[in-house]
C-alpha cells in the first residue's frame, strides 16, 4: 500500500499501524520510531517496514491522532534551534489535555505505557498526579474507578493506623 501512494507523496517512508479496534494509520517513519514498541518490532528486520502492519493492542483509534500529534510536535521541539521557549511547550501540552476526560487520560496513559515512550508517559502521569493532588478520597476513587471494598470499620481502622496522613485534612 505504501508503494501505491508513492506517486503523490514524497520519499518519506510510511509505516502502517493498526489500532486496537482495527483501524489503520499511515505514519511517517521518524514519527513511528518515537514509539519504542514499534521500533523494536523492526529491529533486525528493517526490510519489513514497507509491507508490515504493526498491531498496537492497547491503543484505541480514538487516541491515535492526538498521540501522533504529540510525537510530531515534541520531536520538532527537540530539533529546533534555539530551543522553543517553555511557554510554547506548555501551551501545546495544555491544549493537548484540554477537554480530555479522566477516563481518556487513563486510556492514553495505558497507550503510552504500551508504546513505551517515556516522554509521553511522564507527561501524562504528571497530568494525572496534578488532577488528584490534594483531592478528597471520594474524588480519587472516582478518578481511578476504584470501588471501595472496605467495611466502614476496616476503613476507620486503616485511617487510624495512618492518622498522620489525614492530619489537618478536611473530609468531605
Amino acid at each position, binding site marked *: 500500500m505504501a508503494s501505491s501512494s508513492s506517486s503523490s507523496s514524497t520519499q518519506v517512508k510510511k509505516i502502517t499501524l493498526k489500532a*486496537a479496534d482495527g483501524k489503520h494509520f499511515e505514519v511517517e517513519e521518524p514519527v513511528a520510531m518515537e514509539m519504542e514498541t514499534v521500533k523494536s518490532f523492526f529491529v533486525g528486520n528493517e526490510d519489513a517496514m514497507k509491507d508490515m502492519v504493526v498491531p498496537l*493492542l*492497547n491503543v*484505541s483509534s480514538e487516541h491515535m491522532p492526538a498521540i501522533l500529534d504529540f510525537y510530531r510536535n515534541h520531536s520538532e521541539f527537540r530539533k*529546533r*534551534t*534555539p530551543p*522553543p*521557549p517553555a511557554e*510554547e511547550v506548555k501551551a501545546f501540552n495544555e491544549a493537548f489535555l484540554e477537554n480530555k476526560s479522566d477516563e481518556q487520560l*487513563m*486510556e492514553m*496513559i*495505558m497507550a503510552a*505505557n504500551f508504546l513505551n515512550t517515556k516522554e509521553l*508517559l511522564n507527561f501524562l*502521569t*504528571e497530568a*494525572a*498526579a496534578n488532577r*488528584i*493532588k*490534594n483531592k478528597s*478520597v471520594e474524588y*480519587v*476513587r472516582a478518578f*481511578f*474507578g*476504584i*470501588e*471501595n*471494598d*472496605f467495611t466502614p470499620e476496616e*476503613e476507620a481502622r*486503616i*485511617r487510624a493506623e*495512618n492518622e*498522620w*496522613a*489525614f*492530619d*489537618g*485534612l478536611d473530609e468531605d
Partner: protein
Amino acid sequence: MERPCKKVKIIDEIQSDWLSNLPDHIIHHILSLMDTKFAVGTCVLSKNWRYYWTNIHTLSFCRSSFVDSQVFYDFITHVLHHRNHLKLLKLEIDCSKSAISDKITSLVFEYAISHGFEELDTNMIYLPKTLFRYKSLKTLKTVCYFKYSCFATLTTLELYYVMLDPKKDTFAGCLNLQNLQLIQCDVEGVSGVYNISAPRLLTLQISDFLPSRGRIVIKAPRLKFFTLNAINPPRLSMDRCRSLEKVNVHLFPFMDYDDNTIFNKFSFNHMAYYDDKAMQYYVFRMRMIAMCRGISRVKSLTLSLNLSHQETWKEKLVFAFHMDEDFDRKKLGRAVAEIASEELSDLQKRLLEDSRSAVAEKELPSIEEQILEMKKIVPPLWKMKAKTPRS
C-alpha cells in the same frame, strides 16, 4: 503483603476493563510525584490500594503540611518504617516556613543514604554532616553554600539564593558537573572578578546574578549552552569556552518608560542633558557592548528584551544571529547595542502611543515567528549596522 497478584488479562478485557488495569508501576510513579502525605492517604481507597504507597520512589516531605513538628516527626517515622526497601530515587524536603529538628533530619538522611538516593531537593539551611560523606548524589538543588565538589558524582547542581565566595573557585572540583544553574545568587564582598570553572560543564544558566559590579569569568572548555536572565547586561568573559554553541540572553532592563525624556533629550555624544534616565540608558548600552565582547566566540546568539510593563511578560526578540566565518566578531557588541537601542526606542514610542500597553503587547508575534523574521532580515541589517552609528 496481601496485595492480590494482577495477571495480564487478554486484550478484550483490557479494552473493556481498563480502569482496574493501570499497571502497578504507573500507579507507584503517579504517587511518587506528590507530597508523600497525600500518597500515604491513598491507603484508604480500597484493599488493592492499601499498600501501593509503600512502593513510591520519591519521598517528598513538606513541614507546612503538618500542624507541629511532633506530628511531622511521627509521620516521617511511620513512612520510613513502612516503605518497601526499594531503591530511593529522590528526596524532597520543604521546610520553608519553619525549621526542622536535627532528630528528623538525621533520621531522613540516614534512610535516604542507605537506600541509595541520587537526587536531593531541599531548602534546608543546614545539611547534616553524614551527607557529605555520601558518594552517589547526582542532582542537588540547595540554598546552602559548601564545598559542592565533595559529591564526586554530581552532574546537576541548582543553587538558589546562595552567597558565593569570590576567593574560591567553587565549581572547579566538581569533575562530573554537566548542568549548573545559579538562581538569584550573590557574591560576598565587592570583588572584581568571579570565576566559574568546571571541566565538564555542558549547560549553564545564570538568572538574576545580583552583583552588578565586577565581572563573571567562565572557564568551561566543554560548555555548549549558556542562558542568561538578567536585569541589565553583566560583564562576562567566556574566552575559555571553546565549544560554545548557543547563548540565549534575556534582559529585563529596568527603566522608566513613563515619560519620553530619555529619547528626546538624550544624545550619545553630548552628555550635557543627561538625567538619571538618560544615564541608565547610556549605562545599558555600554554594558551591552561589553557583554557581547565577552561572548563573541559563540556560534549562535539570541537576545530578547522584555520591555513590557510588569503585568505582561511577553518578550521581544531583538537579535538572533548565526555567526559565520566572515563575521567581524569585534564589531558584534556595537551592532547588538545599536539594534537593541533602536528596539528600545521603537518599543518605548509604541508604548507611549498606546498607553494601554496591553493592546500593543498582544500584537507581538511569538518569539519563534520573530526569530524567523530575524533570520530573514538580520544579515542585511548587520551590514547596515556595521557602519559607524555616530555621524
